[in-house]
């Protein structure tokens, strides 16, 4: 008889625990189902975080110039051209530039440039991106003069915010380098 009672108690204990922990958030929140089930502010995290980053990435190319040429010249052996571009990150999140290439017309010739290595830019900050390309045939020695905001042609840029990639091209990035 005693064993039978113990066995019943052993079986009932988990049920009581489950019922208690099932009901306790409702009791604590005055039977407000929304407050008990939903996170404190479900849109604080996923909503604002995701939307602001996607929105920011989408808005960024439309906001105006986010990069400017800082330096340009020829490599030591004179076979390659380099351009250093300062790229700003207006987003509240770090940005990775995974791809950046384009062509700049200068001195009657065209420079075809591509990023040497991916660059990370902290939130609200800027970073120098080095673009390099072969020296065009027509470029006279010491004749590389570029405006601060040159017109890029065939522009390709891939931005990444926490792994979410935004491939941009000339059409999508219009306005940035006008």
């Amino acid at each position: 008889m005693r064993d039978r009672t113990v066995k019943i108690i052993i079986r009932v204990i988990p049920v009581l625990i489950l019922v208690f922990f099932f009901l306790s958030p409702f009791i604590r929140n005055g039977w407000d189902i929304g407050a008990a089930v939903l996170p404190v502010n479900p849109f604080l995290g996923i909503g604002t975080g995701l939307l602001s980053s996607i929105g920011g990435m989408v808005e960024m190319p439309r906001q105006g110039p986010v990069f400017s040429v800082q330096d340009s010249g020829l490599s030591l052996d004179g076979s390659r051209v380099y351009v250093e571009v300062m790229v700003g990150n207006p987003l509240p999140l770090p940005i990775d530039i995974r791809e950046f290439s384009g062509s700049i017309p200068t001195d009657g010739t065209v420079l075809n440039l591509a990023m040497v290595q991916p660059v990370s830019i902290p939130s609200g900050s800027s970073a120098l991106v080095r673009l390099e390309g072969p020296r065009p045939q027509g470029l006279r020695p010491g004749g590389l003069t570029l405006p601060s905001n040159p017109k890029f042609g065939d522009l390709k840029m891939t931005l990444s915010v926490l792994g979410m990639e935004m491939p941009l091209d000339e059409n999508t990035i219009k306005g940035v380098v006008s």
Partner: protein
Amino acid sequence: MTAPDGESLNLYWLNFPGIIAGIALMVLPFLDVWWRFTVGDGAVVIGTSPFHVLVESFGIGITSPFLASLNLGLKIIFIYYGLLLLAGSVLRIRDDRRSMADFLVRVSARKLPWLVLWFLVSVAISDVLINHFFSLMGVQANVPYFTGDSVISLGTGLIPLNIPLTQRFTGIFIIAVLVSILSLAASLYQDRVTLVKTGEGLRVRLIPEQPPVVPSPQVETSETAGTGR
């Protein structure tokens, strides 16, 4: 208690798989999540197990009071079942408590396998809902079931956006499956088999349905009277 081969080997009546599974069952709720769903490189991370639900968006943790409470309840319940399994496996050594020992193992040993099964069904349902959610949004997405990578492409006007999605079972889930198998083994071991030390070493033996009837040495029958047996 004596082993079926007649040797007095009390320790061999312990339910060893049950002891290990019982301890593992008590530790399991304190380990990490079993399944992780990631958007981007950690832009949004959803990690779940019956004992934890972790939602992080851009480093901000999001907690549902109801789920947190339910997780805590399950944690306590499974620690309790671990204790029962351990107690039943040890108590098996005592003849007078054998019925209670069997009951404790019976009550506790099959709970984790059911929980693992329930968890798998939940993950499958989640994947169905995720795919349904994207199709409602008009987004081309084929999120694989249970584990795998996929990329969804959101077109926001002119600007395309590729969002990688990753889902994986963690090593802790594998541990949970192994503990489940061990729990089931403990249940079988408790009922039917035992470890016995024989001349050839340790052997697994089936426990006979009926205990062997051994005539009491004090009672002498007419045949044995006077024979000295």
